[in-house]
């Protein structure tokens, strides 16, 4: 069996709680290129070069740490500014153009729409509305198109390269998913304005969320159809940041978060793919609810703020991917990182565990800390 096939099998085992050792996954769209000497501005300007630098970086780390099994959020030739603008529907300042060479992209979350425009979204459809009212206000269309073209031309070769190196990609952009509308609306309305709407006109917010979700769900369905039979498209992610349990009240979570998150995950699972639930911030209050999803078909990817020890008790057979905090990878010592990972495995066991950074490895992380994170998993006994 090839390294890729071995790792693929290990992934399936981990999701089904049959692995004996913890797995390791590299997740970080920028850090590999930055630690290889590129500036953030260069990485944004030439995302394909940044991707190949990252691939080389992962390869080197793989040798040093005793093996990396998977990759999760990795560069695939898509410009980060384009990616983040589309992910959050907010304007993103461009390193090297709007801001310094080595300043991380800045998301300018500000009010782009008023609450009386909810009806417009419902009437016109979200895609049309965004094309007219949002996208031109957050990104230069020529800039976006230029990089989408580069992405389209390079992505297949890049995906194949990851495969040749032996890494299944758990969060694969070729596999579409349906986002939680609350996250998009937060970007467009700003979080405090959206919350105000939630407290004063929850039914309207729900109505607009339903409309957005339905439209996107249908688009995702068509996209999933195309990748259904491609075994190498392993999984897709559904992400939550501002929708974390600690961020919103139970009423908002039950109405505007979980119903969509669940349907989004089920849609991916139904297409035969793995649902990777990317959970930033603290999800302790509601973690049990993920048990409503089909066992062995999903991964919870937490960032260090959700208590995995408590979660393991409530979800004894769920695959966890996490959760070394960004701060530790930046400001900690390799010994502290090694210790963190060792204790995590000691406490929740190696079964159903994929060791990786919380969210992503930040670009400010040190190389030694990244190696220590994976080494600890590989040397655990």
């Amino acid at each position, binding site marked *: 069996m090839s390294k890729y096939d071995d790792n693929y099998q290990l992934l399936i085992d981990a999701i089904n709680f049959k692995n004996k050792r913890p797995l390791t996954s590299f997740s970080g769209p920028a850090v590999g290129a930055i630690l290889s000497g590129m500036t953030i501005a260069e990485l944004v300007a030439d995302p394909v070069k940044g991707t190949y630098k990252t691939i080389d970086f992962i390869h080197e780390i793989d040798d040093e740490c005793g093996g990396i099994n998977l990759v999760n959020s990795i560069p695939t030739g898509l410009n980060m500014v384009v990616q983040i603008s589309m992910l959050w529907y907010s304007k993103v300042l461009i390193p090297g153009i709007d*801001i310094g060479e080595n*300043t*991380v992209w*800045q*998301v*300018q*979350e500000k009010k782009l729409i008023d609450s009386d425009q909810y009806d417009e979204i419902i009437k016109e459809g979200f895609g049309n509305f965004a094309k007219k009212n949002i996208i031109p206000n957050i990104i230069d269309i020529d800039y976006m198109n230029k990089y989408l073209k580069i992405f389209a031309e390079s992505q297949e070769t890049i995906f194949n390269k990851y495969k040749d190196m032996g890494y299944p990609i758990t969060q694969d952009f070729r596999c579409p998913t349906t986002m939680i509308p609350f996250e998009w609306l937060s970007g467009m309305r700003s*979080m*405090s304005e959206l*919350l*105000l709407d*939630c*407290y*004063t006109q929850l039914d309207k917010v729900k109505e607009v969320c339903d409309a957005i979700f339905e439209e996107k769900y249908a688009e995702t369905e068509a996209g999933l159809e195309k990748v259904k039979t491609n075994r190498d498209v392993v999984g897709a992610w559904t992400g939550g940041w501002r929708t974390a*349990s*600690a*961020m*919103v*009240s*139970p009423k*908002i979570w039950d109405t505007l978060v979980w119903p969509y998150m669940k349907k989004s995950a089920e849609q991916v699972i139904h297409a035969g793919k793995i649902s990777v639930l990317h959970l930033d911030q603290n999800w302790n*209050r509601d973690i049990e609810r993920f048990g409503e999803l089909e066992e062995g078909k999903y991964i919870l990817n937490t960032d260090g703020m959700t208590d995995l020890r408590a979660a393991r008790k409530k979800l004894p057979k769920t695959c966890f991917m996490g959760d070394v*905090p*960004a*701060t530790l*990878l*930046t*400001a900690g010592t390799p010994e502290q990182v090694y210790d963190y990972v060792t204790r995590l495995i000691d406490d929740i066991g190696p079964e159903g565990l994929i060791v990786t950074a919380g969210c992503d490895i*930040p*670009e*400010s992380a040190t190389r030694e800390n990244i190696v220590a994170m994976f080494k600890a998993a590989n040397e655990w006994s």
Partner: protein
Amino acid sequence: MSNITTYLAELKMEELPQEVEKELAAGKDPKEILAECQEGMVIVGEKFANEEYYVSDLIMSGVLFKEVAALLEPHLKQGDVEYKGKVVLGTVENDVHDIGKDIVGNMLKASGFEVVDLGVDVPPQKFVDALKESDAKVLALSCLLASCYDSILATVNAVKDSGLRDQVKIVIGGGPVDETIVDYSGADAYGVNAQDAVDLCEGAIK
């Protein structure tokens, strides 16, 4: 407990402003209304600490508090409100997270501080200018990104260079900030939540 305190503590978006208008019209002292609101904010803080309330509730209490303050303002004479002290607040350079900073700002206001909020992505010099202009004795910095520790350091250094360091206490907070970052940056103290921010600022002006 007064109606105002209860309505704020229970985040009654419609009832609270109505009640404030009603009581003002009936001739109630606006300072008393403000005090009752502050009491309500303390209860909100407690509910958050007990996990009865979540971040969204803290944000909403801030929105409500602001609304009431705007209603009271025309009725308050200059000098009516006695502030405990002044705080310059902001999220450090290159960091745009403001949810936590805003909560800290609201809690500080609710506990009687005058807050000069400089927003997000604030360059060190702007903090220094605001300290000079306002004569504030506390600088509160929020930082959520590990890549922005150097912005905290640069801000502390700018305060040093301006000659104000021994007159100003610098407190820091935000997700990844801890004792190590206090040592690294030369700030005075850190806090993990908005209540800490209030306690630290109160300590700083004593």
